[in-house]
């Protein structure tokens, strides 16, 4: 382990890769700090720039965006009172009040320090648990992998905020999209006589189309509905380093607890930074001796929020690298990056590409250091950049999406794929269909079919999925997750009806 890590560190420390990590972190912070842009969008925009790079450079750039993005949300959260990303919603609860009391530098400094420590702890979790889970999952045969993918999809679908049916529908649609084109036996499916459909859809334009268009158009609609609510902001910020060191010294336990919650939540499918954020904030409040100070500008609230959402970065890599199953949207895209560079994430990656795994660890660590330096030195600029209006951002990002899709294969058809899936994604979003299960379905579809048929070719009985203990366990967990979501859906429905009756 030490050998490959040192080798990877050597590669990542080369000036060109370091420069890419710096660019990635800067872009990630900018992306995270612009309200409505989100970490996922930042990753999607940068993704095409990695096509021509070697795997270590490409992955390092993306990891930089990832680390920067999760910490960037704090800038607009503190300065504007608007979370830059959904994973920094609870940062606003205490960051903004502290800034309103005339201490924006202190709020930003505490958040950045907590982000840094959170990332470091999550890397430790990844380094320890990644190889452990990978070596355990080496025993998985096609039956177990099939069942695990089904479980991951039902779990993500079930966590779609009271929309279980639509979540499952989205996952099935995502899987269906991957059946277009030639299959593993070179049989053509669903080409409808269009030659370009023979090779199926590339994952990238489909993912960008579904996510980016709905997100950008949604931002425009929000802008239309919220007109006149824009407010001016003072971007002159000074960081009181001594005060922050004192604040952080009193937050050791809170930081550790929040970072561990973030790492654990990040490793669970379908959760991500937003869930980590809320759980960690809630726990910090419960453990606090002064819970009444939460929401008024207490350092504990900012630490809980930022340490947990940044720790998601390392935690989320655990299932992606060790099992080949991404837990959330940014990780699904990361998996796309690895696949594009000819690497299949999964247990074998630790054996076949140890240097790349080491490069991910090293990039996370270096990225965290660069993130702190950038945030502390350039926070004033990030605050200014976070004010870029959506009216300018949307056309620019759409253009970058189009060029990125084209650059994948130098193929104009991919821009049409982007456009068509953009329309589909937007309409599904309007119909309140969750898009994360859809994108996860697209990413996992080919593997699911491959593993399912490998299992059936080895043993043509479907019952084997139930007679193998681990496979049966994953399927039972999938059913349990659906039943639990149904129960949750019912509860949400009842509460809504009750609220309507009370309003009437």
């Amino acid at each position, binding site marked *: 382990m030490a050998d490959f890590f040192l080798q990877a560190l050597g590669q990542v420390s080369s000036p060109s890769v370091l420069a890419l990590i710096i660019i990635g972190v800067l872009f990630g912070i900018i992306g995270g700090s612009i309200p409505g842009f989100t970490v996922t969008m930042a990753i999607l925009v940068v993704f095409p720039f990695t096509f021509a790079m070697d795997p270590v450079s490409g992955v390092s750039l993306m990891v930089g965006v990832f680390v920067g993005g999760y910490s960037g949300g704090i800038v607009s959260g503190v300065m504007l009172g608007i979370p830059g990303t959904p994973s920094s919603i609870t940062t606003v609860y205490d960051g903004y009040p502290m800034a309103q009391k005339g201490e924006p530098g202190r709020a930003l400094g505490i958040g950045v320090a907590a982000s840094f420590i959170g990332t470091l702890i999550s890397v430790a979790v990844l380094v320890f648990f990644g190889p452990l889970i990978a070596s355990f999952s080496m025993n998985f045969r096609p039956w177990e992998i099939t069942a695990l993918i089904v479980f991951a999809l039902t779990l993500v679908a079930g966590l779609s905020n009271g929309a279980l049916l639509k979540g499952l529908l989205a996952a099935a649609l995502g899987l269906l999209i991957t059946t277009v084109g030639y299959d593993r036996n070179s049989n053509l499916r669903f080409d409808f006589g269009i030659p370009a459909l023979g090779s199926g859809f590339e994952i990238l334009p489909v993912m960008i189309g579904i996510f980016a268009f709905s997100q950008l158009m949604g931002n*425009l609609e929000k802008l239309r509905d919220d007109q006149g609510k824009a407010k001016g902001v003072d971007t002159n910020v000074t960081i009181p380093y001594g005060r922050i060191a004192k604040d952080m010294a009193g937050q050791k336990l809170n930081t550790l607890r929040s970072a561990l919650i973030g790492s654990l939540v990040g490793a669970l499918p379908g959760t991500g930074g937003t869930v980590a954020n809320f759980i960690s904030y809630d726990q910090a409040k419960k453990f606090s001796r002064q819970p009444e100070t939460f929401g008024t500008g207490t350092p504990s609230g900012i630490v809980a929020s930022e340490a947990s959402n940044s720790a998601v970065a390392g935690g989320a890599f655990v299932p992606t690298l060790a099992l080949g199953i991404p837990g959330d949207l940014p990780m699904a895209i990361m998996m796309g990056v690895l696949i594009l560079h000819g690497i299949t994430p999964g247990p074998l990656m630790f054996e076949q590409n140890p240097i790349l795994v080491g490069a991910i660890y090293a990039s996370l660590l270096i990225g965290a250091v660069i993130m702190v330096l950038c945030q502390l030195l350039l926070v004033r600029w990030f605050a200014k950049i976070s004010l870029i209006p959506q009216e300018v951002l949307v056309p620019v990002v759409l253009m970058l999406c189009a060029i990125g899709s084209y650059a994948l294969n130098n193929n104009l058809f991919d821009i049409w794929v982007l456009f068509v899936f953009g329309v589909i994604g937007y309409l599904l979003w309007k*119909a309140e269909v969750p898009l994360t299960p859809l994108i996860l379905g697209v990413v996992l579809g080919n593997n699911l079919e491959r593993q399912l*048929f490998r299992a059936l070719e080895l043993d043509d009985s479907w019952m084997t999925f139930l007679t193998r203990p681990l496979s049966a366990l994953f399927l039972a967990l999938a059913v349990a997750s659906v039943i639990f979501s149904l129960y949750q859906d019912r509860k949400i429905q009842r509460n*809504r009806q009750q609220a309507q009756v009370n309003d009437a």
Partner: protein
Amino acid sequence: MLTLTKDRALALVLLLIIAVMWVESGNIRPPTSWQPYGSALFPRILLVVTGLLSLLILVRSLIAGPGERNAPRRSFGEWLAHNRTVLVLFALFGLYAALLPILGYIVATLAFLVTSLGLLLGIDSRRKWIINLAVSCTLVPLVFVIFRFGLNVWLP
């Protein structure tokens, strides 16, 4: 009279697509002697699952609670007017995709950016025009240079 809610529209459109895909799946080559299951099996399983879920959504929308029934309704014309900007932007993007191979990257992208920025920012002041042209004229060559010389990608 039954009105077309979001859920009903979603379910009906999906059921239609599933029917078309089911018919098309008949054109997939049948399994050979060495294949236990053919290439049509996996998509057909997914079509059945998607169809069942769509049906469930449709049924649920028909027996919906008061919230669903009392949701505010818009006529198609009102909906078009309400979403005018988004729809025009989609149309501009479609036009951009169509014109890219004809006009080439520089001209098509410049045209797309200037028009879409004009649509979103407005064109009623000199300041807005300056922002529009500054963003468009900086980004178009910058992206070209990055892709062409940095990443070795030839843009159309």
